């Protein structure tokens, strides 16, 4: 049966041979007397020195590309609007809301703090000058630029640790160094350079960890396990995209555990569980703690009320200094209050004008007094809270959740009511009107409303409480929407009774108690800021981040769909300067990216052909090459796929720069594919020897001249293409119209100043 032979050969790829006698072991290699000492490192000291030189040179170039004229443009560029602003908020300590976790923004804030920036500037518009606003923007940009540059040596080292020859590693580093998108995106005050940096750290750490697998539970093994856990936590603390990195590592870990579980590995169940729990600790528990830690710091730093308040619940807002919620006054029966709609901020209003008996569309109204939503403060916005029991006015008692109340319009002395009459603009909703206290009480039942407190505790308060007003009789909620009434309603907003009381837009709040005694206000207002459990705050913020992120569905002229990214169909205009006709246009290096797509296609093709031929009992790839192809190149490919395909499931507006993490993987894959195509054999073994590992034979890759030649050609093209588009990448010099036309390789690239 073919299956057993395949199982054996895959077993032999495990490279760790158990000496347990009860388990049959295939013994087709490595018995030629080489000793362990021979293979502790496959690379000679000379090679290691060479590698170090290449690493240093690449790093220098990378720093050069990221820091070249970093002082230009001296204006706010693209999303610096957001992230620069957030850094300022951290320095000021004012609360803000963003869909991304806090780490990268905190790093920017810390950087600003270190260089003495006081957070005075709010980065309000693209194109605002840093010079005239006196912002130390170079220092701020230096942080992402440094991390962007450091990505290059880490990629080089990752490839090196994964066993590729210097040429292949250098190619990967070179491709990443000279990609226009990575350069643009990492030399500005943005989050992606931190994201990519921590992401490559995760991959590097995991590769190192995997290489120590023959010495499980050794110090190095633990070190790299924890390092992987820390890195994925940091990645996720920058952007939730880090979860894709977690998934990449997760896939590798599950696969590794599956192999360890195999009885032929000779591990007892106790030993296996030890492996399992160690990974659960290092890759689940540690990351969660670190992730939460950054949120803890986030809340600890942002202690003052700020622009983010409105996103949060009133309980949350009460924990911030200077928040109006903290000043909420308890509302009692007999108070005169104003009531405002949460979504549209209008006041619940009425005035001595009636609905027209017959509307333009022929429908008929009750011709009762109008109730509308009005934007401005007005005596007609005042309502008196009365109890539903005429015999027990309850005066002075606090209004509680689920109390049934009546609202008296003070100026016209009439009761708020709703009834089964169609509203002016929506025939499905009920009309809301009032009737005078002079009339008899026969309509009493139409005037009772139940108050449903949705937030702010069990007692009705100003500012803090949001509530629904549910009509007792017909079970509709008092509601308003931005539809303006016609002239007869003074173009105020329509208020009606909505049958769908679950809708989120039926919430109201009270902003003021009229005529409240000043001393009383003083007494209630000087309450200290409340404390709230960290986990509650975290859960609330995390939930809001997710729901807001999913809600970013608005159209943006530069948004693109994931299918367009690898082919670089569309770029993003980051910044333009009309006088000098300079611009920054985010676009990847077309040569590199398009060739990278070809590299990905090669992986798919080779894998497909290999799987098919194996199924027919034919093994086209040499054993070592096969192993490297799947374990190393395949791992990077999985990284690419997991950082790319999930975007297809996202409903939010997406942009080209979301492809950055995947792009880095695709360059690593491309370099590896180049190695696969032009290098003969592989270097190995690369993993640490361990006590249970049999002696292994040393294998060396042969890098022929053609490999150098093709790599040189690819690098030259890549570099040429980089330089060609560099003016758009750096925005340091203007290009004339024909120049732009030459650079417009695809019609969808919408450069400015092209005419």
């Amino acid at each position, binding site marked *: 049966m*073919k299956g057993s032979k395949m199982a054996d050969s895959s077993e032999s790829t495990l490279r760790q041979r158990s000496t347990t006698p009860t388990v049959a072991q295939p013994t087709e290699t490595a018995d030629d007397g080489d000793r362990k000492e021979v293979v502790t490192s496959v690379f000679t000291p000379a090679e290691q020195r060479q590698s170090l030189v290449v690493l240093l040179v690449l790093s220098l170039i990378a720093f050069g590309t990221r820091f070249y004229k970093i002082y230009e443009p001296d204006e706010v560029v693209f999303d610096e609007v957001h992230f620069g602003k957030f850094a300022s908020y951290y320095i000021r300590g004012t609360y803000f809301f963003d869909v991304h976790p806090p780490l990268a923004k905190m790093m920017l804030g810390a950087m600003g703090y270190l260089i003495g920036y006081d957070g005075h500037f709010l980065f309000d518009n693209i194109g605002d000058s840093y010079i005239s606003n006196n912002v130390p923007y170079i220092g701020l940009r230096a942080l992402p630029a440094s991390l962007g540059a450091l990505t290059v040596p880490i990629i080089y080292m990752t490839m090196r640790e994964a066993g590729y020859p210097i040429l292949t590693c250098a190619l990967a580093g070179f491709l990443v160094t000279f990609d226009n998108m990575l350069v643009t995106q990492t030399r500005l005050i943005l989050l992606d350079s931190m994201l990519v940096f921590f992401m490559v750290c995760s991959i590097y750490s995991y590769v190192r960890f995997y290489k120590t697998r023959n010495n499980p539970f050794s110090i190095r093994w633990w070190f790299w396990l924890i390092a992987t856990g820390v890195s994925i936590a940091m990645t996720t603390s920058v952007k939730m995209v880090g979860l894709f990195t977690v998934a990449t590592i997760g896939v590798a870990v599950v696969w590794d555990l599956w192999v360890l*579980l*195999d*009885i032929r590995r000779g591990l007892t169940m106790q030993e296996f569980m030890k492996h399992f729990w160690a990974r659960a600790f290092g890759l689940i528990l540690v990351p969660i703690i670190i992730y939460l830690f950054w949120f803890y710091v986030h809340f600890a730093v942002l202690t003052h009320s700020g622009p983010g308040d409105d996103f949060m619940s009133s309980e949350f807002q009460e924990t911030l200094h200077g928040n109006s919620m903290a000043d909420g006054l308890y509302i009692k029966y007999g108070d005169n209050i104003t009531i405002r709609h949460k979504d549209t901020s209008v006041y619940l209003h009425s005035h001595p004008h009636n609905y027209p008996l017959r509307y333009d569309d022929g429908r008929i109204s009750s011709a009762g007094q109008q109730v509308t939503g009005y934007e401005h403060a007005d005596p007609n916005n005042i309502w008196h809270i009365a109890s539903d029991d005429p015999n027990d006015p309850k005066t002075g008692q606090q209004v509680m959740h689920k109390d049934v109340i009546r609202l008296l319009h003070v100026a016209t002395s009439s009761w708020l009511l709703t009834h089964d009459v169609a509203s002016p603009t929506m025939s499905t909703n009920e009309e809301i009107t009032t009737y005078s206290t002079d009339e008899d009480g026969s309509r009493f039942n139409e005037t009772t409303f139940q108050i449903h407190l949705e937030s702010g505790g069990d007692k009705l308060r100003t500012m803090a409480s949001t509530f629904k007003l549910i009509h007792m009789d017909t079970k509709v909620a008092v509601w308003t929407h931005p539809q303006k009434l016609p002239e007869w309603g003074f173009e105020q907003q329509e208020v009606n009774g909505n049958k769908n009381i679950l809708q989120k*837009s039926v919430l109201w709040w009270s902003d003021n108690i009229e005529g409240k005694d000043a001393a009383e206000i003083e007494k209630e207002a000087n309450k200290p800021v409340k404390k709230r459990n960290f986990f509650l705050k975290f859960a609330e913020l995390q939930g809001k981040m997710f729901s807001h992120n999913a809600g970013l569905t608005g159209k943006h002229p530069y948004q693109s769909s994931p299918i367009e990214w690898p082919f670089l169909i569309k770029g993003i205009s980051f910044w333009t300067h009309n006088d000098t006709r300079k611009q920054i246009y985010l676009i990847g290096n077309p040569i590199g990216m398009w060739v990278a797509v070809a590299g990905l296609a090669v992986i798919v093709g080779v894998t497909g052909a290999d799987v098919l031929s194996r199924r027919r*009992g034919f093994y086209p790839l040499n054993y070592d090459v096969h192993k490297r192809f799947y374990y190393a190149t395949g791992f990077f490919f999985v990284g690419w796929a997991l950082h790319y395909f999930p975007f297809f499931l996202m409903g939010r507006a997406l942009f080209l720069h979301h492809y950055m993490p995947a792009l880095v993987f695709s360059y690593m894959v491309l370099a590896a594919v180049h190695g696969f195509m032009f290098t003969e054999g592989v270097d190995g073994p690369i993993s640490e020897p361990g006590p249970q590992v049999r002696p292994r034979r040393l294998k060396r890759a042969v890098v022929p001249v053609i490999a150098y030649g093709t790599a040189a050609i690819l690098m030259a093209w890549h570099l040429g293409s980089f330089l060609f588009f560099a003016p758009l990448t750096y925005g340091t010099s203007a290009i004339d119209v024909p120049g732009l036309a030459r650079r417009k390789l695809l019609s*969808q690239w919408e450069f400015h100043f092209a005419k």
Partner: protein
Amino acid sequence: MYGSDIKRRNPAAQAGVPSGDDVMNNYAGSDPYGPNPLKPAFQQHQANLNNREHPSHHAPVWRQYSSNKYIRFYQENDHVLIPAFLTLLSFWTRFRDIKSSNYVVWDEFGSYYIKGDFYFDVHPPLGKILVGLSGALAGYDGTFSFDSGATYPDMGYGFMRIFNAFFGAVMVPFAYFTAQELNMSRTACIFAAVLVLCDNAYLTISRFILLDSMLLASTCFVLYCHTRFRNERHDPFSLDWWLWLAMTGVAIGLVSSVKLVGLFVTALVGLYTVEELWELFGDLSLPKTTYIKHWVARAACLIALPFSVYVASFALHFAILRNSGPGDAQMSSLFQAGLNGNQFSSNPLEVIYGSKVTIKNTGYGGGLLHSHVQTYPEGSGQQQVTCYHHKDTNNDWIIKRAHGESLDFEENQNLRDGDIVRLVHESTGRNLHSHRIKAPVTSSQWEVSGYGGDNTPDSNDEWILEIAEEQSSLPRNGILRSLTTTFRLRHRMLGCLLTAENVNLPQWGFRQIEVTCDQRNRTSSPHSIWNVEQHWNDKLPPGGQSQYKSRFWRDFWHLNVAMMTSNNALIPDPDKEDVLASNPSQWPLLAVGLRMCGWGDDMVKFYLLGNPIVWWFSTLSILVCGLSFGFYIIRRQRKLQDISPAEWDHFQYVGKTLVGGWFLHYLPFCIMGRVTYLHHYFPALYFSILLLSFMMDHFLQKPSISAKTRTIVWAVAFTAVVATFLFFWDISYGIKGPVDPQMRNRQWRAAWNIIDDHKPNTFI
């Protein structure tokens, strides 16, 4: 070696002699009917396997037949009598009291194919054609409008409901026989059938004139054919093998022609086929020609055959709907011209200068070029130009020469490719105009507006006519003809193309479609291509239907794309929570029910609600199946074999098929943005019901389970299902009169609103 534990139908069984499980088990491997000439070795093996699998509860080698002849008759024929009895029960439950409500419940329909007016709907036509057939059989004349809640006239709606309920009823025997094909024990087969029989939701939905019963029945049919085909796999290219492969194909065609949800079960069969071909690919002993034959057979039966059925249903659709109707606008102008009662066929054929025309966008869902006196609130502030789906006089344009060029009215001058023309909006006199001002929504393109008039010469009013395609067989000589010629309008000054890309304008534009001048020069985009729809010119003779023939394949394709587009457009309105809609996460644990009609005291009120026991435990079975799979696979990795390789193989197959079927019918709804309702879950439920039966059988067959335990567990299960079904009986058959407050005890979950109007929703 795979799955030899498959029971074969014994040829003798068809002759009414005891067979099936009993034969296999009772004779302990010795086949009393002599060796089967077709596959004796297999049968022998099969019998051995069965014997091994059921070691305990079939102890007597010979079945003890009773001396009472009636009991003996039952014993000899129970493999027929049991399913027959279940089927009769099914018919009774589905048909009884079917006319209890004499008004239209939920989305009942039935007039489309009787009147023959062309209509548009997101679902393929087969199911609705069958409903039409039932109406015709009932003698219904198609004049009733089927407004939800309206009272039926005297029109045989009872027959139409029974016709539909028939499809719902046959699910029960399908479940029984499919379970049998999946090699479940007799008890488990009965259990599967009873689960379907006693699911209140299946009962309720089957009893109205809706597509769901047909969809469900044909889904069951696909699965049944598929399992039968699989059981033939050891004898490829035999007659039975071909028969059930072809039947699977036909079934796929039918299910997909009823609702596109059928594509999910098609995907299931597709995935199985891929796996099977992959297995065969690894079989090095198989001759290459045989392998190719496997491919060809499947391509023919599982692709060509279903596709033919699907296309045939559309051919029938076009053939029956000969009259112009409410769905015209979804189709191409040329197609509309071929409908009876449509004015287009009297269009003069060739368009000349001075003609009055309406211009339709050829993109899917494209409207007519429209303008009205309202102006753009931003940009140029000139008169709006939009695309609009309804027919009114603001769609009328007059084709004129460019400014300054006189028009000789005596001579009929044809419009030709490359002509420079001006389009004048008839009711306002404005010219179709574009300029370097950003369009209001698609800001990367130029705005198109109505501007000036005959006496305000402006070169921005000039458009170049580019003929795109001549769809008729008339000579392609660059002449613009109404309906049959498609063309582009290129702005002479800017070089951009007049385009409408289904982007809606805000409220100020009445949410009509934005028209822009597109600079990207995408000459092949259907959104930049237009045709003349209506054409009036007194000086020209009217054309005729013979001149306006559209091609079937073009119409077929067009209609299918339109169906997809409008299906995807059924997105929930974020500002409005639809009380009837529900979220997929609420289905598996039956967090919601659905009021199918008004809840007035004098109405018969139908509450669509599943049998909670069936729903909860079938969902649980998916979890249990997943956990058992994980358990077995981890134990196997440690070389601990809990079940034999054959059992493991069979467990994998059934698990993959039923869990896969469930996921394929469930997950897409979670991803889809469209509005979802409770009944979308019903096909998925069928798979989980079979899985529940299978998993119970799987565990109860374990040797460690005593016969007594087995009996008790089955008895409890049957009792729970039937008792719950009866408990919810009233709700399923309609609550007559005011809702009894006693019904409150039926509201097992927080959001069920049998009594109360508004209930908070739970998400699971």
